[in-house]
């Protein structure tokens, strides 16, 4: 039991060194000559029509974040639901208390217009 956890730390350190080493090697060894031809697709493939780095609307991130938040909060309902019956009224009350802040949060972002597209 004990021995392998000694290994954990060694791995921690080792992984660090290896990764750093490779990154460094890459830095050192790789020649850095960048000319226009190099940027173009080689032989096959399409010349790109637009930069892949174009900006998305921030709305994507916003909605994504909000979704993640509520989605994860919802996770707490599963264990609760599993023993919902055994908990009885007490459980219901507690979960109600739990839900109130969520609803408040919803109201907040609604009013702030985070949900408008």
């Amino acid at each position: 039991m004990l021995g392998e956890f000694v290994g954990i730390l060694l791995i921690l350190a080792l992984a660090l060194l290896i990764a750093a080493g490779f990154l460094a090697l890459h830095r050192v060894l790789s020649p850095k000559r960048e000319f226009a031809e190099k940027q173009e697709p080689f032989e096959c493939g399409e010349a790109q029509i637009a930069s892949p780095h174009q900006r998305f609307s921030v709305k994507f991130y916003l909605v994504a974040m909000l979704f993640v938040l509520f989605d994860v909060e919802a996770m707490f309902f599963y264990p609760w639901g599993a023993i919902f019956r055994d908990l009885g009224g007490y459980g219901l009350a507690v979960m109600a208390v739990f839900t109130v802040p969520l609803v408040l949060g919803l109201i907040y972002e609604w009013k702030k217009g985070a949900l408008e597209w």
Partner: protein
Amino acid sequence: MIPVPTLHIVAILPVLLLAVGAFAVLLAELFLSSRGTGKSGAGSVFVGVSGATLLVVVVIAAQGFISAGAPAFNPDHPMLHLDRFSYFAIGLVAGAALLSCLLANGYLQELRIHHGEFYALLLLSTAGMVLLVSAVDFLSVFLGIELMSIPLYVLAGFDRGKPRSNESALKYFIAGSFATALLLYGMALVYGATGATHFAAIAARLDPDDSMAMAGVALILVGFAFKVSSVPFHQWTPDVYEGAPTAVTAFMSVTVKVAAFVALLRILAQAFGSAEALGTVLALLAALSMLIGNLMAIIQDNVKRMLAWSAIAQAGYLLVPLSTGTPEGQAAVLFYLAVYVFGNLGAFAVMIALTHRGQEADRFEDFDGLAKFRPGLAAAMVLFMVSLAGIPGTAGFMGKLQIFFAAIRADQLPLAILMALTSVVSVYYYLRLPIAMYMRPAREHPHRKELDFLEFTVLATCAIFVLVLGLLPNTLDWLPVIDWTHQSAAALASK
């Protein structure tokens, strides 16, 4: 049918109140600022609500301290333990938060970033600290530390328009969540080694020779060393302090330190008591922090940055008695925390009072000749600097004295001497502000002409406490601070 656990609401009352207050402020923000109501009107509502909440929490803490603690929340599996120790810390944290939120009003308006979210986040962060200082189970420690930190990440970047503020937030966030990950891994390892997350159980089963357990202990220590910004986990501090809005810096520079140190005290005393080797590590961290913090502070040319490095040095001072592990040491930590709160808040309060039209006063030049046209402010600043430097007659000296004698009693003479030496060095940079204010020719600054009432209140409170803690730390029978710290330490010893 699962037995319904008995809940002692009084135990979570402070947290509940703070959360409710936070939501109240949020709703107020929604419905006031959307309407045509002037921001100033809204502002007074925000300050009123949050201030009142914090005041109530302070009162609860005082009440709890007098009645020597409350029954644990959910006694069969306690997460929080509200004894005198935690109530002392809650009072301190809530008090500091109260002062900072009084400071914020005028400042935010000067910076044109006066939103209710500020107060809501401040309250939530305070709730996290309250959780943290009363936690007796790593689950609640984790909850508390995160509920404390996440709002702070946002607050650091509260001045959204300013790249510096963004950067400060980003750095704090990345470094902070990295530290959290380390802390969590430590908890996992300790859990794996002992099969428990509750302090008492861990203390019972922790084996100082089990390297996995000790690795976990080390990682947890690191997590807290980051929060208290001790060398070598300190580097985020200057950047974050400088970049964040001064009101935020003031808030977090004191409250986070209090919460993290208090929690660390409890963990060391109640969970990791059997790991003596920790003492050496803490002493080493203390020495490093005192040396590097003080020496780096000398070369700063930005006041906030200078105060950041000084905060690192102060963390070193606080680690000295922590490393002794004696009740005296714990009491000294608590007392010095109180000292630190008022001295540091006061210094930042002066800077805030000088902020005008989005123009922060955070370079030494901004203080040139201040004594000419703001004698009161200048005098107050001198007082706070002198206290931070630990000149007798001020709180700082009394605090350092407690630490010195606690350390000497624990035969930590070298640390005590190193501390005395480094605090001699520190005078060099703490004096720079008085010199600038009194001996440099005055220059024209866009300073506000008058303090607003709240700022005056905060400054006066800090100044009074700095003097009282320095001259009558235990004399007034309604304010026997030293006795309080010793009672709290005693409560800590009796699990």
